[in-house]
C-alpha cells in the first residue's frame, strides 16, 4: 500500500536545538519556504535532557533580541567551583587554573527542554509546522540514491505486527532537502552514516552516558548561579567521567554525572556510580534535606572533530549531535548544535534559491567559529584514554599553554562497544543499596521520567541475534545491558534454571546507550510508536 505523502521545501527530523534553529533560520532567510519539524516526543522538550550551562553565542546570532522575548534563559552563572574528589575528601581546584574553555562567567544555567519549547514557539510564529508525536522511522530515497524525505511510523500495530482497530498508516514527508537532527545516535542518522560512508577516514565515534536529577534543596544551601564540576571518585583513574551541579532558579539544583562509554569493566554500572557519587560528603551536604523531583539519562557524543562525519549528502544534511558537534572540554553541545543548524539553513537556502550544492556546508562549516572551537578542543578527550591524571596534565598543556594549537591530533582508537574486557578478568563492583533519601533504585527513578509506551506494540529494541545475550554475552561479559541501561530495560531472569533475556521496552527512556555499548552491536534501537518515551519537564 502506498502511503499518503506531504511535500515541503525542507523536512527536519528532530525538534531539539539544532533542528529548531534550522527551522527558524530558514524562515528568517525566506519566509516563503515550507518547513516542517518532526518530533518523536509527545511534545517539544519532552525528550530533551541536558545539564545545561548555556553559551549564548549561537542564539545571539539567531535571535539577537532574545532578551526581550521572555526566553527561559534567566540564571546567569555567578560563581564557579571545581572539585577533585577522593573517597571522603575533596580538593578545591582554583578556577584560575582552569582552561579558558571551562570558564562560564558569561553563560547561563538553563533547562534545555524549556529553551526548546521556547524555540518551538518562535518557529511556529514564523510559520514552521511542528509535529510532535511523529517519529520519522524510515528514510526515503530517490532513484538516483539521493534522500527524498522520511516516512513516519505506522501507528496502531500490535506486538505481533498486526493492525489494531486504531491503525493509522504513516505518512511520507518529502522535502527538497531533509535535515536529520535527531540528537546523539539518531537511528536514521546512523543509517545515513553507513549508507553514504559519511565517517570514512574518521576516527570511531565516542560516546558518554549522562545522568541528570533535579533536586529542590534547602534555601540556605542554595546559591543561585553556582556552577560546580567534579572529577575523581567514585570513578577510578582509568574511567572517564565527572559530575556537574548547577544551582538554577526556584531552589533547584541540576545534578548530574557523565561517564565515558569507553569504560572497560563490564561490572561497572553507570547508574550506580552516579547514585554512589551523591553520597560523597561534599555533595551529600548540599542535597541532604532536599527532594529529588526529576530523573533522566541520555547518551551524548564525545568524539569531536576527529570523529565528526561528513555532514552533507545528496538531498540531506546531518547536523547537531546527530553528527556530533559537541565540544567536550567545554562540556557543551547546545550552542554548537545551534550553530550547525544556522549553517544548515544558510546552505539550504542557497541550494533552493540559487541551486548551489549542499556540499557548500563543508566550506561554510570550516569558515565558522564552530570549526575553530572544535579544532581547539580536539585533543582533550583522546588524552584521557591515558587515564585521569595524565589526561589532566596533557589538557593543561594543550588548553592553557597552547590553547588547542598543538601541531598534532590525537586519535580515538576504539569504538565504545569494543572496549569491554571479559567479566572474569575484571573486578566485580559492590554497589551500596539505595537509601531512598539520597540514592535510589532504577525503578523509582524511571517512575519520575513519566515514561510510557502504549502497550501491545512491537518491541522497539531489536536483537539481531535473539540468542546472543544468553549464549555469548552473558557468559563473556555477564550481560552488561543489565547495568549500562539507566532504566532497567534489560534483565536476565532465571526460569526453571534456564536463563532468559527480558526486554522491558516500556521502560525505555530513549537514551540509546544499548545501541552504542552492546559489545557485539546486537541491540538496535528503532522508533517506537509516536509519543512514547519519557515526558521530561524542565530537564
Amino acid at each position, binding site marked *: 500500500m502506498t502511503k499518503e505523502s506531504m511535500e515541503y521545501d525542507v523536512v527536519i527530523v528532530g525538534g531539539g536545538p539544532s533542528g529548531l534553529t534550522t527551522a527558524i533560520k530558514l524562515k528568517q532567510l525566506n519566509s516563503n519556504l515550507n518547513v516542517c519539524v518532526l518530533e518523536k516526543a509527545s511534545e517539544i522538550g519532552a525528550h530533551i535532557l541536558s545539564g545545561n550551562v548555556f553559551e549564548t553565542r549561537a542564539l545571539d546570532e539567531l535571535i539577537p533580541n532574545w532578551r526581550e522575548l521572555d526566553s527561559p534563559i534567566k540564571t546567569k552563572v555567578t560563581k564557579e567551583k571545581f572539585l577533585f574528589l577522593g573517597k571522603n575528601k575533596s580538593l578545591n581546584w582554583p578556577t584560575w587554573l582552569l582552561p579558558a574553555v571551562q570558564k562560564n562567567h558569561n553563560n547561563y544555567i538553563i533547562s534545555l*527542554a524549556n529553551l526548546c519549547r521556547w524555540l518551538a514557539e518562535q518557529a511556529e510564529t514564523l510559520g514552521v509546522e511542528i509535529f510532535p508525536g511523529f517519529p520519522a522511522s524510515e528514510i526515503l530515497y530517490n532513484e538516483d540514491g539521493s534522500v527524498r524525505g522520511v516516512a513516519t511510523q505506522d501507528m496502531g500495530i500490535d506486538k505481533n505486527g498486526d493492525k489494531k482497530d486504531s491503525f493509522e498508516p504513516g*505518512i511520507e514527508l518529502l522535502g527538497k532537502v531533509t535535515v536529520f537532527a535527531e540528537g546523539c545516535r539518531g537511528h536514521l542518522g546512523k543509517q545515513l552514516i553507513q549508507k553514504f560512508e559519511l565517517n570514512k577516514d574518521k576516527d570511531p565515534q565516542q560516546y558518554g552516558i549522562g545522568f541528570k536529577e533535579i533536586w529542590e534543596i534547602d534555601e540556605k544551601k542554595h546559591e543561585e548561579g553556582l556552577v560546580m564540576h567534579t572529577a575523581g571518585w567514585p570513578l577510578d583513574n582509568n574511567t572517564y567521567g565527572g559530575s556537574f551541579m548547577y544551582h538554577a532558579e526556584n531552589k533547584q539544583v541540576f545534578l548530574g554525572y557523565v561517564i565515558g562509554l569507553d569504560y572497560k569493566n563490564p561490572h561497572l554500572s553507570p547508574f550506580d556510580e552516579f547514585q554512589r557519587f551523591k553520597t560523597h560528603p561534599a555533595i551529600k551536604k548540599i542535597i541532604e534535606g532536599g527532594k529529588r523531583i526529576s530523573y533522566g539519562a541520555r547518551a551524548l557524543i564525545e568524539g569531536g572533530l576527529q570523529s565528526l562525519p561528513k555532514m552533507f549528502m545528496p538531498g540531506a544534511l546531518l547536523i547537531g549531535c546527530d553528527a556530533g558537534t559537541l565540544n567536550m572540554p567545554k562540556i557543551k553541545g547546545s550552542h554548537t548544535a545551534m550553530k550547525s543548524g544556522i549553517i544548515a539553513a544558510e546552505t539550504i537556502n542557497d541550494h533552493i534559491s540559487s541551486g548551489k550544492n549542499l556540499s557548500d556546508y563543508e566550506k561554510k562549516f570550516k569558515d565558522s567559529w564552530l570549526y575553530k572551537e572544535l579544532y581547539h578542543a580536539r585533543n582533550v578527550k583522546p588524552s584521557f584514554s591515558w587515564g585521569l591524571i595524565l589526561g589532566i596534565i596533557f589538557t593543561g598543556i594543550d588548553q592553557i599553554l597552547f590553547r588547542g594549537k598543538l601541531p598534532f591530533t590525537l586519535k580515538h582508537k576504539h569504538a565504545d562497544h569494543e572496549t569491554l574486557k571479559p567479566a572474569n578478568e575484571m573486578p566485580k563492583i559492590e554497589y551500596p543499596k539505595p537509601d531512598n533519601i539520597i540514592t535510589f533504585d532504577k525503578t523509582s527513578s524511571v517512575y519520575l521520567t513519566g515514561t510510557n509506551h502504549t502497550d501491545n506494540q512491537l518491541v522497539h529494541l531489536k536483537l539481531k541475534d535473539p540468542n546472543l545475550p544468553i549464549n555469548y554475552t552473558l557468559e563473556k561479559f555477564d550481560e552488561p545491558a543489565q547495568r549500562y541501561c539507566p532504566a532497567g530495560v534489560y534483565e536476565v531472569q532465571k526460569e526453571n534454571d534456564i536463563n532468559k533475556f527480558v526486554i522491558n521496552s516500556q521502560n525505555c527512556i530513549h537514551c540509546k546507550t544499548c545501541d552504542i555499548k552492546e559489545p557485539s552491536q546486537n541491540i538496535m534501537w528503532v522508533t517506537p510508536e509516536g509519543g512514547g518515551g519519557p515526558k521530561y519537564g524542565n530537564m
Partner: protein
Amino acid sequence: MKILVAVKRVIDYNVQIRVKDDGSGVVTENVKMSTNPPDDNAIEEAVKIKESGKAKEVVAVSVGEEKAQETVRKALAVGADRGILVKAEGAIEPLAVSKILQKIVEKEKPDLVFMGKQAIDDDCNQTGQMLAALLKWPQATFASKIDVKDKSLEVTREIDEGLETIEVNIPAIVTCDLRLNEPRYASLPNIMKAKKKPIEQLNASDLGVDTKPRIEQIKVEEPPKRKAGIKVASVEELVQKLKNEAKVI
C-alpha cells in the same frame, strides 16, 4: 443529529504529579498536558456515530484557559467538525462547567452531549450529572456501549455489579467509560486540516455564568508514604499479625 462533546485539558496521565511546597495545589509549569483520557473516548464515539451516518455534526467544547485551545484542536484532528472554547481563569468547579455547558447547549441545540465519565485531575465525576439536572435531560453515565436508535439510545453502563443496559430518550447526556472504544490517532494530514477548522472563543463572563468557586480548598498534600512490607512465615503468623498488630480482623 448533532453531538456536542465536552473535553478537558488535564495533566498527562503519565506525568508524576508533584504537590507544591506551600500546599496550594499541584505543579503545572512545564508539565505535559493532554486531553482527559475518557474525553478521548467521548470524541471517538461521537465521530464514529457521525461516520455511521447517524449524526451530521460533532462540536467539541472546552472550558478553561487559553491553552485549552490545544485540547479542542486535538478533538478537531480526530474528527470533530468545529470547536468552542469558553475561556475562564483559575479553578472552575463542575457546577460552573455544567452551567457554562448549559448555555452552550441552549445556543447550539445539540441532540446529544457526550463527555468523559470524570476528569483524572479532580476526579469529581459530577459535570455530566449536573448538566443533566440543569437541562432536565435524561442521563446515561459510565457508558461502555452506545447503540443509537431512532429517538433513543441503548446504553450499556459499567456498574459495580457488572453491566447494566438502559434506554434513554434523545436528547440525552452520556458520560463515557474508557472501555467504550479505542480512540484513534490523529494523522498528520488531519492535524493539518484541523488547523483550518474554526474554533469559536467565548468568555465565561459573557455567558453570564458565575464561575466563583463554591468549595474552599484548604490544603493539598501528598498521600503518606507506604511503609515497607514484611514477609510472614505462615498463615498463622499472618492472622496473628492482622489481629494484633494491624488490628483489621
